[in-house]
């Protein structure tokens, strides 16, 4: 195992975050704080409690998940796309590193950043609403698992994309709508039966539901199903990454 290489890639990516602190950390935290102000403090005061949880508190897990998904994808996709775009990827591909080591470096850094952001947003939320975490171990587990899974997904997008438009296409046109419609701001039980059934095809529902369970002990779907769906998506991403390196897709001719 080339630990020096994993460390080099990981530190390189983390240094990029440090250089772009405003964009990487301050911007998403500020956006989420605005959500808390609008939906939590302003509108939330006029909303009924959901499953016994005040609305302002109810949206905390969903908002963290929203940031976690978008940031994991954007960090990991940019992390691998940019060296491809400027050509510096030649160095990684010619180094004595395995596919696992490359992925561990890039995805590890992206997941670390998004998990850190999630925790910062959790901390920020306590300034606006009351938050409790019933199952902290499960909360951190969901956070890490989702961060890794969606960083892997972002890594795949970064390999697939051959221009900046494609790089943004899936996060903006697929992931963000799915997250908004995945129960981040409401319980899917509030939907009419038909739309509730349709929503169950949205994988983000399971992530938000499981994560919310770790906070309040209430969920839209069974916690085991949530965990199973997250692990299933992780497995799917791992298979896609394995195929990419096996075939050299968009990396080698």
């Amino acid at each position: 195992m080339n630990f020096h290489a994993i460390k080099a890639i990981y530190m390189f990516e983390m240094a990029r975050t440090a250089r772009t602190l405003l964009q990487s950390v301050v911007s998403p935290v500020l956006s989420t704080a605005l959500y808390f102000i609008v939906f939590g403090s302003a509108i939330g005061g006029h909303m009924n409690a959901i499953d016994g949880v005040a609305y302002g508190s109810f949206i905390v897990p969903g908002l963290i998940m929203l940031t976690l998904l978008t940031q994991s994808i954007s960090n990991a996709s940019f992390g691998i796309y940019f060296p491809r775009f400027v050509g510096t990827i030649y160095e990684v591909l010619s180094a004595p590193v395995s596919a696992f080591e490359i992925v561990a470096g890039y995805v590890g850094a992206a997941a670390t950043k998004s998990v850190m952001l999630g925790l910062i947003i959790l901390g920020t939320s306590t300034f606006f609403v009351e938050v409790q975490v019933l199952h902290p171990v499960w909360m951190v587990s969901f956070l890490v698992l989702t961060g890794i899974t969606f960083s892997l997904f972002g890594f795949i997008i970064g390999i697939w994309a051959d221009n900046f438009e494609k790089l943004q296409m899936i996060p903006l046109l697929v992931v963000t709508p799915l997250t908004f419609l995945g129960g981040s701001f409401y319980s899917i039980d509030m939907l009419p039966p038909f739309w509730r059934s349709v929503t169950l095809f949205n994988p983000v529902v399971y992530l938000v539901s499981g994560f919310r369970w770790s906070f309040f002990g209430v969920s839209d779907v069974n916690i085991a199903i949530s965990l199973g769906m997250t692990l299933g998506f992780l497995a799917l991403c791992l298979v896609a990454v394995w195929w990419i390196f096996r075939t050299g897709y968009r990396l080698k001719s």
Partner: protein
Amino acid sequence: MPPILRVSHLSKVYKGGFTALNDVSLELKQGEIFALLGPNGAGKTTLISIVCGLVNPTGGTVEVSGHDIIRDYRPARELIGLVPQELKTDSFETVWNTVSFSRGLFGKPRNDAHIERVLKDLSLWDKKDNMIMTLSGGMKRRVLIAKALSHEPRVLFLDEPTAGVDVELRRDMWRLVRQLRDEGVTIILTTHYLEEAEEMADRIGVIRKGELMLVDEKDALMRRFGQKRVTIQLSQQLTAIPAAVARTGLTLSQDGRALLLTLGTTPAEAPVSDLFRALALAGIAYSDIETQQSSLEDIFVELMREHA
């Protein structure tokens, strides 16, 4: 001593059907400078890219110090350094960080003393904290070389290393390459500046349309294909060349003011004494003699023309 690099029957056919390399075989000794010459699209960069793991071969094998580059890629790649043709750099990184990153990537523990030595050798030490985007093209080229040397490779590929750099930097690079060769590093150089290959290379390979046309010691190649052109400036213009003088091979220039002769470079083939005796007997006076040795560039151009 076994070869440091062994390329056996290497082929590469791209998806569209273009054959970039066709049955290329080559062996390089440790500590030699090998210049790979060929026109654009000849297959030089493809060959380098396959050895470095950037392109998958469609046939043949490559071994670096006995390690197969596919089955045994880790020890093989640890020995290789690559300076690519294009200036591919991390614009927002500092020189120190990007060179240190390369060392880690190739599995080597941190060694600030080595990085400092490399940066000093390449006159980059005073730029170590500068962001790469602030450097000139020549300086960026030095950074790429520093990155390739950061992990102490035994085989160094320099793909057009002096393209677009000034004379001073070119001479600095030549000095560095010789120093590396003296330390036992094998250097594979591709260049369009043929005087560079002539100045530096121990052996030369010529590749064309994906096929290695010839590989030879530089001096042997110069002897084999090189020519010497002799120009004798006449004191008086001639309208015709005397038969006895013409028999030596001399020809009259169009303006009648010079006699011309092309000789092989082997001394046995050069009947210089016969030539001057014939001129003396014919009473032809001359004011100047000029000789011109073919350069590697002349030989290369001639080879390309013969195989066009």
